[in-house]
């Protein structure tokens, strides 16, 4: 295995019109970013539910990123603005239960901004590295189980 700490898991909820397409383009341009980031496609960040983020943290995610269109560019007019508001709400809730609010962040990434997508993932990984693992999973509360890779000769 390489020196990448794949133990950290970052869930990225990406709107299919912008951020998801930017991640696709990052691939097309062969830009490399931390493998810790796992993308879940949603039609619009307006669909981003406070519950999804909380459930992800409860399951053991070390960070959650929400990535939608540029402000004013939402394919569904205002979905990304609603998402911003909900991300703020999650931050509040995290603070209340004693988790760091920085574990969730909203990004605005248009479909051509592949390198900005990459920097967003890097930024999230740096945040997690600074904060350490999600304490929920350290306390054994999260039922997280790793994928095991075994080399068979």
């Amino acid at each position: 295995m390489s020196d990448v700490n794949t133990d950290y898991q970052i869930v990225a909820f990406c709107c299919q019109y912008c951020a998801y397409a930017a991640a696709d383009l990052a691939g097309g341009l062969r830009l490399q970013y931390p493998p810790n980031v796992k993308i879940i496609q949603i039609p619009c960040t307006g669909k981003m539910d406070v519950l999804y983020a909380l459930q992800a943290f409860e399951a053991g995610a070390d960070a959650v990123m929400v990535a939608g269109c540029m402000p004013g560019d939402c394919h569904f007019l205002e979905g990304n603005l609603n998402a911003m508001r909900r991300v703020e709400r999650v931050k509040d809730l995290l603070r209340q239960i004693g988790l760091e609010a920085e574990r969730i962040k909203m990004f605005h990434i248009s479909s051509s901004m592949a390198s900005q997508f990459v920097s967003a993932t890097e930024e999230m990984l740096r945040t997690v590295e600074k904060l350490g693992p999600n304490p929920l999973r350290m306390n054994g509360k999260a039922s997280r189980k790793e994928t095991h890779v075994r080399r068979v000769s």
Partner: protein
Amino acid sequence: MQNTPKEELRNNPESETDPIGAVMVVGGGIAGMQAALDLADQGFKVYLIEAKSAIGGKMAQLDKTFPTNDCAMCTISPKLVETGRHPNIELMTLTQVVDVRGEAGNFTVTLQHEPRYVDNSKCVACGDCEKVCPVIVPDRFNENLIKKHAIHKLYPQAVPNAYAIERRGISPCRDACPAGQRAQGYIALIREGRYQDALRVIKMDNPFPGICGRICNHRCETACNRGLVDEPINIRALKRFVTDKVYAEPRQPIEPAPRLYPQRVAIIGAGPCGLTAAQDLAKAGYGVTVFEAMPVAGGMLRLGVPEYRLPTWIIEREVQDILDLGIELRLNMQVNNLDDVFAEGFDAVLIAVGAHEGIRLRIPGANLEGVLVNTHFLRDVRLGKYVSRHEDGRPLEEGKLQLGKNVLVLGGGNVAVDCARTAVRLGAKVAMACLESRDTMPAHPWEVQAAEEEGVQIYNDLTFEQILADEHGHACGVECMRVASFYFDESGRLHVEKVPESNFVIPCDTVIFSVGQRAGLAFIPDDAGVGITHKQTIAIDPNTMAATRPGVFAAGDSVSGTAFVIEAVASGHKAAESILRYLQGEALERPPKPELPVVRLSQQEIEERIARGEIHRKGRVPLPELPPEIRRVSFEEVEGGYDDESAQEEAARCLACGVCSECMSCVFACGAKAINHDMPPMREEVKVGAIVLAPGYEIYRAELSEEYGFGRYPNVITALQYERYLSASGPTFGHIQRPSDGRQPQRIAFLQCIGSRDQTHDYCSAVCCMYATKEAIMTKEHHPEIDLQVFMMDMRAFSKGYWAYFERAEKTYGIQYTRCRVSCVKEDPQTHNLWLTYQDEHNQLHSREFDLVVLSVGMEISPEVRNLGRRLGIELDAYGFCHTVHFNPVQTSRAGIYAVGPFREPKDIPETVVEASGAAASAAAQLSRARFQLTSTPEFPPERDVSNEEPRIGVFVCHCGSNIGGYLDVPAVTEYARYLPYVVHAEDNLYTCSQDSIRHITEQIKALNLNRVVVASCTPLTHQPLFQDVLRAAGLNPYLFEMANIRNQCSWVHSHDWEVATEKACQLVRMAVAKAALLTPQQTISVPIEHCALVVGGGVSGLSAALNLAQQGFKVHLVEREAELGGNLRRVVTAFPAGTMNALEGEPQALLATLIQQVKSQPNILLHTQSRVVDFGGFSGNFVTKVETNEGKRQEIRHGVTILAIGGEEYRGAEYGLGSHPAILTQLDLEEKIALYPDQIRSWKSLAMILCVGPAEQYCSRICCSVALKNALALKELNPQLQITIFYRDIRAYGFKERLYTQARARGVLFIRYTADQKPQLSFADEQGILIEAIDLALGRKICLRVDALALSMPVVPSETAKEISKLFKVPLGADGFFQEAHVKLRPVDVSTEGIYIAGMAHYPKLVDESIIQALAAASRAGRVLSQEAISAGGRVAVVDAAKCTACLTCVRICPFHVPQIKADQKGVGGIQGAVTIEAAVCQGCGTCVAECPARAIQLMVFTDAQILAKVSALFAWEGAPEVCLT
């Protein structure tokens, strides 16, 4: 004889009644796509023609769009995908329209399809080909800032998502080579250090590369275009280099070619020709035996070329490579009788015996002792019979020979030189004598020179009388005479005029004749049936190489006389091909092959490429050579070879003339077998009812304005290049760089109007002010520290939101705007910085240094498009812009052909999109009877009911060639998937999306009874619809499908870590499977629609929209407040002069009268005048509206669509004393005066106009400048003496309206600019006139002006009913009170509510033609809905569980589309009356309401909470998850 269109139409009675239900759209840019989509949605078959390899046009090249700074790619790419997948749009890329015959309703279009060389239907765009393509050429999509490969995808998001090969033609090197060697290809591979691949390319056409690399006469170099720059590429040396390089490595055993056929071929002669043919025939699967009379194979190569030129080892190596294919070689076998060969059972014979017989001149003494013949001499030396005199003193061995001391070679050809130089090496003193002069010697000059360097003396212009003998009868000299002149007659006989009494003797002891060779044909008896020519060569058919006896072929020197190796090779190939055809029983003549042009670069193109910096002058890299003193005593190879570095340096000089060189690297790399280099161009005829031309524009070629240094100064770039720098997916990923040194510039200047508003362009390009502002803003967004200065004449921010955008640029971002046209750019050659000298508005002179200069280049029409116009017979102006006809602004001069976009007049994206829809509406009205005549709907089997089945998931994992499989363990991922819950089948495919895989998946679904499918491959954004169709074809609901994007999210982005990428792929597959298990079928429902439209507003926009929809066959209710139709246009009387508006060059009132008359006589239109809308409800397809007359009579109208065309009004505020004086007028008042009181105008001496009054200080009302200029010209027409002064802030005469400005200045109208803080002041107004005071900026002082009349350009303001209508129809108003469109750029006539469209001045102020086009566009959008039988709804939509709904209104408030509605008849939570309903037909599927609903009563189908949370938990917790075992 061809019918004239008229006759044809008469001969075809159907066309009289039935137009063809298909439309051709020419141009695949944003306009073409929009027109195509609008028409296809309305039930017409669309052929979308694009000259490039992908659609997208200029907009795909843009970074952002103004004035919203939206990402251009984000906005265009959904359109690309939609266009690419529309069942009624047939994309034809790399295609041009050649000819159009017929008439409106029935055109026959001839198309030319250029070859793509890649089969679209097979290419999966994996990109493996691009990785191996060695040819790199400037990337035009990136405006030549970087390079791309000859095989390429135009841009990452390109549609069709397939590669294409750019090939300009055949490179001259290949053309010149008899064997067609792909020199350009192997040179490119050498440049990349790919020597094995290079040799493979060479060997495809020539089995003797090492030999040709040494002794070829390389006609390729003579033809090489590089010779026009400096020196040709040293192709021969490169070929030698690469063979030496590969042959130095251990030889890989050659696999024998599999024998496929029983027939055998005999080849007589193991020279280059015979062996080439032997190779081809063996590879084709035939048995081959080669007969060779000599003890060694290689023919002339081995026995005729001296060792110092061609070492034996290389011949042996290359011969062995051929023999190892399984060819039998019989040495020392002289064939004496062809009958014996056939008797042995051979089915065909190839005679390739070469020309080994030397010729002696018939002169006295020719047979003396000491007289030799070239071929025998050289052969004996190579066979080792001669001993060098350098080893004098040793006794001669038995059977060995020694040459005399003084050798004279008779002859001036290359063989003669070989003999001479060989004799030198054997220790003789050597001279050559020949008939020709030094300049005309047949030998290559460099050979002659090398011989001289080695000490050979050369006698020219001689004829040989006799060879003298000494007392022993041994030759001792040659008696010669001087030649005055000679020639060969038609029969080849030599005629010589000798100089009388010029006899002299050249003494020598050995004479070698080298005056020609011929084949040794002794074995062919006269009765063998094989004819011989009088030149002693074998008679053949030159096309087939067949001799006169069936089954006998002949090739090489034995048919052509002495030639070069490469010709022998070519001849061998040709003979082999004929023999193959003979053995297969086919006609010997081969069918003609399409021929590509040979790319011969002109000196002009060379110079242009040098000027652009694409070519740097640099001569050949020299080759090492042995010094003559060593050469004289040794048979060691004279010429050395390149080393790696110098070979690559030499290879890099190649100009890649043909672009693709057919090196076949891509063919070997393509796993999908999609590449076909022999694809021919094709012609096709297509029948259509109408044609929409949207060919777009070209940017002005800035190098033509030499004063700005584009092309010469690296740091002067075009705005489109700057756009590519800014683009996050551009060549620098969005980093702004100076081309000269890659540094980030600190000071950037934008120069406006390059190629616009100048002596050669009398029009304004209309977009440059805004795009420069956009680029400046984007620069500031990234780097606030960069200093930006824009040099312009006027700021033409004339459209919606543009003025605010400009003000933000100036005030918020601090971009400096200077009103000056800079006349030239100077470069500091040391720093490559640029100096601009300019004068500001106060006449101050400045000189300033910049790091980068961006030229805001204007729009032009390309020569190709002008040709297209000519071919189609439509009228174009001198610039190539298309004329459109009176009263129909998108109609060209030829009925049934429409023109849109910048092809009509320079314009921006929204107007282009509007015109595209407008043209679609016009075509739809023309062809309405033929709707759905030619469209098709894909047929699928009935869906299987899976509701009671447990999930049975099939997982298909894609290798994507090497794109996934090369970076992660696909078999391991597949194996892992096998053990995931509900997975009953997992397999991996090389390309899951290839046609055969798709068939296979369909079969697997049926065979294994799968009810859910997961594909782990690339992105669902492009591939999901494709796989969903696979499910449908297998009888599954398409929503039972999920994708894991393991290419874009694993292999490509973690390509350096096999295990990490594999692990993540497993996780993504696990997540996809978890969601798939919860997927449910989604049914679409059909909602029938009302085929009727409501148009609100009876002005020119409402009338035009209503008329078009009625002509399309739909019923229209037209509601107008007033008693009279016509709106604002009723007050417009002065016409625009010819050429200033492109269309509508007519009297406005005539236009209006016609329009009203047409509307009134149209039975489909129901007029409701003096009426207003009082109630509105429903949704797209099913609206209900109540209309009330002034008398209070109400009527309910049910309609499918709504068009709001309520117009605008002229502002009538009290600014500048309006209303206080009879001579203070608005422009509309002035028009009235012009029409009704011309005498009053004739009495005026002076008049002033003030532009930008009142609200126009806040937003640009767009039309005022043009109207003011138009009226000024009308005034001058009535009263040429009238002094007109126009006070303005910017003259926004966009497009052809610039000509109004030019004409006004030419007619003496005065223009005085003012600023917002120093507006003109009205001092007083009385019977004497009106006194105006203003500051003249140029003079820097106050001026006073007394005028007889003052015309105020009052802006258009929203109609007084706008607010009311906005509330009623829930259509939002923008900041300035006009209706807000759904998307500024791409949905300019749609609003956020489906089924409602806006047109005309209700949207924004616009001129009459613009209003008409927008009305047509609204009609087109409306026609998309009305032409359907029903709206199909469902899939990804929000669904309410009423039992949970508390009717709290949260969803109603948050939905941006106003879809949720509380219905009283629904029962909510606890059975309480009232719950929300979300109409599936109008739900947009964003899920905003779902995430907001406090009762969780709403779910978004396909993205339910359970499904998303299943993904989340699958990432983290999955008890019993299997281990990943790397294979």
